[in-house]
């Protein structure tokens, strides 16, 4: 997050971006429908990863119930389209407002807590949303909502895997641009300041509670958008897509990629989705192999596949606060600057 720098575009920076762009454009043209579907799913996880990255990577808040916002977005679009015959595009603002509202409701009382407590509360919230969706009649209970219409652009009905892929790509690019801008903005600096040293941030005139809530709500809205897309992509949704494991998977995307890093999120999403597919040959031990693969990856690259400066800052901040805590316990050993 070099807020002030305009870095020169070197080959070293361009080459990986060009490779990803080529792959992203080539896939829907040359890929089989199955491969395109996998690509579309990767795009969904890129959106989710980018959204959670605002919460965890930028603002440093541990959210273990992130799938709840994904669910709220998906159910909002699904129900509005199926029950009220509202066109897809008009369900998007509704999903945005509802996820933002739930973000505010959950975030306001909880964001004052320390991160480990926050993790527990968000975990609970995630479960509440899933269980509510399973038991309420208007959400369709365990069967969920099906027969969700395809989205349209004028007379064009987006039905084919290619069309859905491009729609997902559009969504992902919007979310990516938003994340990129946020990191290089007044907001991004405020988050960075809060995460590095909350007291110093306050002394600089920043109110941490407000900016934490803002990160939480923005993350929620990103997940809502991903949910809206997910609903029309699958044309049927049910509570089993929004479990605790889903929240953990999204968290894995950003931890695997490298906290706070946008290329990291893209890479992380690709690994999380493609690796289990690639391991289908192993059949019954597939998920075991996937788990072992993840452990090995984290052991080899604990900082993530494509770490950012932020990821390192988080680590240092933790080490620093531990050092401070130790210094408070034993003032005699506190480092005195001489």
């Amino acid at each position, binding site marked *: 997050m070099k*807020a002030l720098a305009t870095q020169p575009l070197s080959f070293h920076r361009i080459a990986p971006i060009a490779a990803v762009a080529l792959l992203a454009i080539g896939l829907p043209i040359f890929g089989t429908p199955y491969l395109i579907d996998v690509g579309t799913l990767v795009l969904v996880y890129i959106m989710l990863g980018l959204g959670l990255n605002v919460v965890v990577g930028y603002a440093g808040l541990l959210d273990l119930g992130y799938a709840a916002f994904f669910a709220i977005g998906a159910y909002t679009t699904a129900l509005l389209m199926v029950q009220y015959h509202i066109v897809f595009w008009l369900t998007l603002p509704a999903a945005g407002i509802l996820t933002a509202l739930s973000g505010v409701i959950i975030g306001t009382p909880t964001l004052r807590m320390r991160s480990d407590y926050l993790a527990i509360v968000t975990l609970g919230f995630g479960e509440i949303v899933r269980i509510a969706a399973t038991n309420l009649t208007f959400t369709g209970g365990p069967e969920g909502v099906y027969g969700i219409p395809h989205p349209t652009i004028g007379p064009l009905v987006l039905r084919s895997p290619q069309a859905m892929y491009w729609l997902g790509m559009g969504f992902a690019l919007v979310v990516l641009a938003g994340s990129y801008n946020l990191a290089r903005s*007044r907001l991004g600096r405020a988050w960075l300041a809060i995460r590095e040293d909350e007291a110093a941030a306050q002394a*600089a*005139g920043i109110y941490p509670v407000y900016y934490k809530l803002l990160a939480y709500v923005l993350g929620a809205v990103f997940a809502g958008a991903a949910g809206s897309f997910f609903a029309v992509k699958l044309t049927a949704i049910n509570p089993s897509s929004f479990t605790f494991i889903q929240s953990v998977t999204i968290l894995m995307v950003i931890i695997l990629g490298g906290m706070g890093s946008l290329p990291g999120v893209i890479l992380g999403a690709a690994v999380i989705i493609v690796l289990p597919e690639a391991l289908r040959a192993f059949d019954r031990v597939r998920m075991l192999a996937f788990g072992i693969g993840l452990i090995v990856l984290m052991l080899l690259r604990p900082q993530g596949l494509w770490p950012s400066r932020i990821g390192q800052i988080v680590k240092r901040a933790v080490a620093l606060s531990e050092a401070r805590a130790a210094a408070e316990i034993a003032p005699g050993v506190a480092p005195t*600057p001489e």
Partner: protein
Amino acid sequence: MAAASAPPHVQTDAVLGVEALTMRFGGLVAVADVSFTVRPREILSIIGPNGAGKTTVFNCITGFLRPTAGRITFDGAAITGLRPDLIVKRRIARTFQMIRLFPDLDVDENVMIGLHGRTRAGTLDSLLHTPLHRREEAWARDETYRWLAFVGLKARARSRARELAYGDQRRLEIARALATAPRLLILDEPASGMNPAEKAGLVQLVGRIRDSGVTVLFIEHDMSVVMGISDRILVLDYGVQIAEGVPDAIQRDPRVIEAYLGREDAE
């Protein structure tokens, strides 16, 4: 300036008023019934042995602690117990005894964060990089470099804050505080850990800050710094105010001499 010639205890022109400030931590009384005023464009120092409650007074003024009792006014308005960011908005800025920079950010980014309260770009501006955001960022960059030049760190703008020499880190923290456009700047032991050359530079910098129209309140241990720079001095001992006056008078005050030399607790 009028400050030097104004009679003491005339409060009408006071920038900061502290009245009967008391801070208790459980059974410990860190600050007991301390009252003083700071007049526009003066440099007031608070001195006292370790544990005298100096930093506690600062933390109460800057909103990091809510005082047990007492009243703090700034420009005539009560600011007692306000949140730290709202105190900054009222144009009181501070530094910390143990330097608190954002060590992994660049020097210019540290100062730019100090401009937070002086810029307005909201969520949509930040998401979309609207013209307002771009204008503000350009302004913020200029303003940042202006303050870096003021404290003499312009050449280090693109270094990581942690890579700066100790004295420069102190200067950077002051630059970040100045970026909030304070009318009152509160410095907590800015000379501690500095070498003599750095101390001389600091004294000169604080003088320039005052000359730019900012009132300065500061805690200091180093008597050479305090005596050379202060218009008035307030002495605290065990949370109690034992003397207040111009440097010459303070130096001769028997209670001050006793507090500093007469006992063995001077750690």
